[in-house]
């Protein structure tokens, strides 16, 4: 709170509604708020709150032993104006006071259409039987990587064997992977929980561009190592440690711009892992300085394949942008085994608010366009597609798979599973839930043992639900629904939208 800055003091976003009748002055809320919102006044033996500091994370509310706290939106309203919403007005105040770029975390919070909510799934009735997933085996196993154009077999001494040499594949027991979240942006406790949950669930987590902490090398079999424009933490041991390598070109939350880890978050361990001096800002360039064309990308893909003896699939991750389909086609032709596409609702630890909210396109449209383009060009088999950015539940995921994704990346749901309340203040480095912070006092709040359980439970629950959807559709293997848009119908969508999504309207 700046002295004399009445606007930011009084036009606060949240109100800490404390029932003083129920408050026992135990000060748990005082100790739990990293922003100093709750203050104990010893002389009066009372706990009060400075509303201007509250970010609406609900940590105090969750921890209060008497339930005396309710976090409410500040209902004080500016004069109604269709163009000038409260958030717009407050943003101008903030920038007029600081001259800075507005920062935020998590993914786009604007009300662009969520196409998942306009797509409905099919089920079997009478003429084709549904399957009970509790009684019959259901197959969610997914292979990610380049598939051959044709298969050739040879017969030796009466035994038939495969002659075609298969490209390296990632075997996922469930088609859900943890998306790239770098050590530094999130802390080691969360990285460890992701790694252990991936191991327990037979799937993978992604290191992001933060390198691989030495204590996490043992989870290599469930690790996708990322090579981003900053090349932080990349060396031979790092590339060898994981089972796949991902080249990050773009990220859904901030297409076209690089990552930014403030120097305050670069402590000793982050410095060692990223291979940069302590306290320096870790700024990833917006582009890879050695990639200015598909040909350049091909060079990096093959350099990485060469470095790892062609034993690991190489993925290329891009933001969902206007020309995603054409770009994806180039990526596949450049030799990528997996194309990851991150939609506009994809999350981040820190991004300029205006970029996050206004750049990119929804994953639903990008995914449908990319899948269709690769099919039309006859190269869909040459790469798997991982869709990312905004998945909220198992139905979003099965719809994505029916639209053409081989698997999906989840980031925000993984954070929510360990306590995140989507307060969007990740960039402050003070995450009250101990996720996007390296402050040892706060990071302890994420106990990796509990986090592993929560993440494993989430994947287990979603896998069960996906099996229920499949059973209802009379399908017993996820392969049978992949790209099967005939099992999707749109509601409340225009002709144009239906055409891009490649689905019929409900009733057709």
């Amino acid at each position, binding site marked *: 709170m700046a002295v004399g800055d009445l606007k930011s003091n009084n036009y606060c976003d949240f109100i800490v509604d404390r029932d003083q009748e129920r408050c026992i002055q135990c000060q748990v809320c005082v100790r739990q708020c990293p922003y100093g919102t709750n203050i104990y006044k010893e002389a009066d033996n009372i706990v009060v709150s400075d509303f201007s500091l509250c970010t609406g994370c609900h940590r105090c509310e969750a921890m209060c*032993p008497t339930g005396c706290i309710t976090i409410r939106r500040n209902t004080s309203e500016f004069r109604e104006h269709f163009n000038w919403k409260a958030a717009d007005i407050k943003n101008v105040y903030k920038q007029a006071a600081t001259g800075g770029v507005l920062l935020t975390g998590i993914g786009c919070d604007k009300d662009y259409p969520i196409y998942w909510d306009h797509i409905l799934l099919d089920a079997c009735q009478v003429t084709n039987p549904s399957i009970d997933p509790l009684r019959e085996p259901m197959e969610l196993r997914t292979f990610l990587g380049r598939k051959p154009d044709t298969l050739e077999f040879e017969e030796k001494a009466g035994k038939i064997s495969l002659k075609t040499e298969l490209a390296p594949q990632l075997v996922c027991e469930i088609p859900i992977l943890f998306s790239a979240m770098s050590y530094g942006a999130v802390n080691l406790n969360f990285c460890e929980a992701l790694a252990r949950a991936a191991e327990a669930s037979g799937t993978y987590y992604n290191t992001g561009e933060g390198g691989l902490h030495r204590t996490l090398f043992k989870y290599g079999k469930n690790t996708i190592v990322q090579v981003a424009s900053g090349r932080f933490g990349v060396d031979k041991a790092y590339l060898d440690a994981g089972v796949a390598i991902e080249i990050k070109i773009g990220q859904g939350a901030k297409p076209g711009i690089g990552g930014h880890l403030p120097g305050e978050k670069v402590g000793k361990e982050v410095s060692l892992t990223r291979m940069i001096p302590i306290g320096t800002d870790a700024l990833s360039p917006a582009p890879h300085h050695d990639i200015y064309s598909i040909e350049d990308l091909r060079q990096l893909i093959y350099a990485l394949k060469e470095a790892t003896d062609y034993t690991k699939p190489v993925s290329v991750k891009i933001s969902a942008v206007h020309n995603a389909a054409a770009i994806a086609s180039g990526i596949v032709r450049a030799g990528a085994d997996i194309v990851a596409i991150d939609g506009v609702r994809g999350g981040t630890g820190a991004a300029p608010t205006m970029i996050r909210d206004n750049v990119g396109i929804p994953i639903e449209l990008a995914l449908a366009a990319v899948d269709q383009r690769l099919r039309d060009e006859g190269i869909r088999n040459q790469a798997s597609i991982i869709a990312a950015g905004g998945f909220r539940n198992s139905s979003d995921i099965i719809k994505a798979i029916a639209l053409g994704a081989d698997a999906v990346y989840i980031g925000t749901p993984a954070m929510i599973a360990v306590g995140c309340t989507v307060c969007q203040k990740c960039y402050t480095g003070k995450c009250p839930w101990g996720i996007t912070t390296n402050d040892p006092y706060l990071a*302890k*709040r994420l106990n990796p043992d509990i986090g592993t359980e929560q993440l494993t439970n989430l994947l287990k629950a979603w896998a069960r639900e996906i099996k229920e959807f499949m059973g209802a559709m009379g399908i017993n293997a996820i392969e049978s629904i992949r790209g099967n848009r005939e099992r999707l119908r749109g509601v409340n969508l225009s002709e144009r939208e239906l055409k891009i999504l490649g689905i019929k309207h409900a009733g057709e």
Partner: protein
Amino acid sequence: MKRVYPKEDACINCKLCEVACLVEHSETKDIFKAYRDVPRTLSKALVEEDGPNSISIQCRHCTDAPCIDACITGAMQRQDDESPVIVDREKCVGCWMCIMACPYGAIQMDVRKKDKHKVSSKCDLCPGRTMPACVEICPNRALFFEDRG
């Protein structure tokens, strides 16, 4: 015997263990009444903090308990080796020898009484409960109630 073991890496200094302990040892076991009692019950669990490090300290119920040896009145006692060390508040004269002897700093002075009667205050592992209150409330699994021999 089962004892309460803290895990320093997971302690987040919320001090909910102190809240739960206080309530459990209050007369009414009602959180609102317990905090309004005058004098207020003492928590037997105490969270020690130093910067980012914190840890909840309770009586270790040592096999070879120095506090029992040090006690001049026999107030500090235990039934057998498998029982918790408890203090008989009627016998305790407040000489604080147990506090001097305790290697963990897990015993406190209770000087709240209006009649100036001083007694030692310490963890009794919550008789009547299967899980001590502090372990049950800990939101980050920083306390374990286990038999580690």
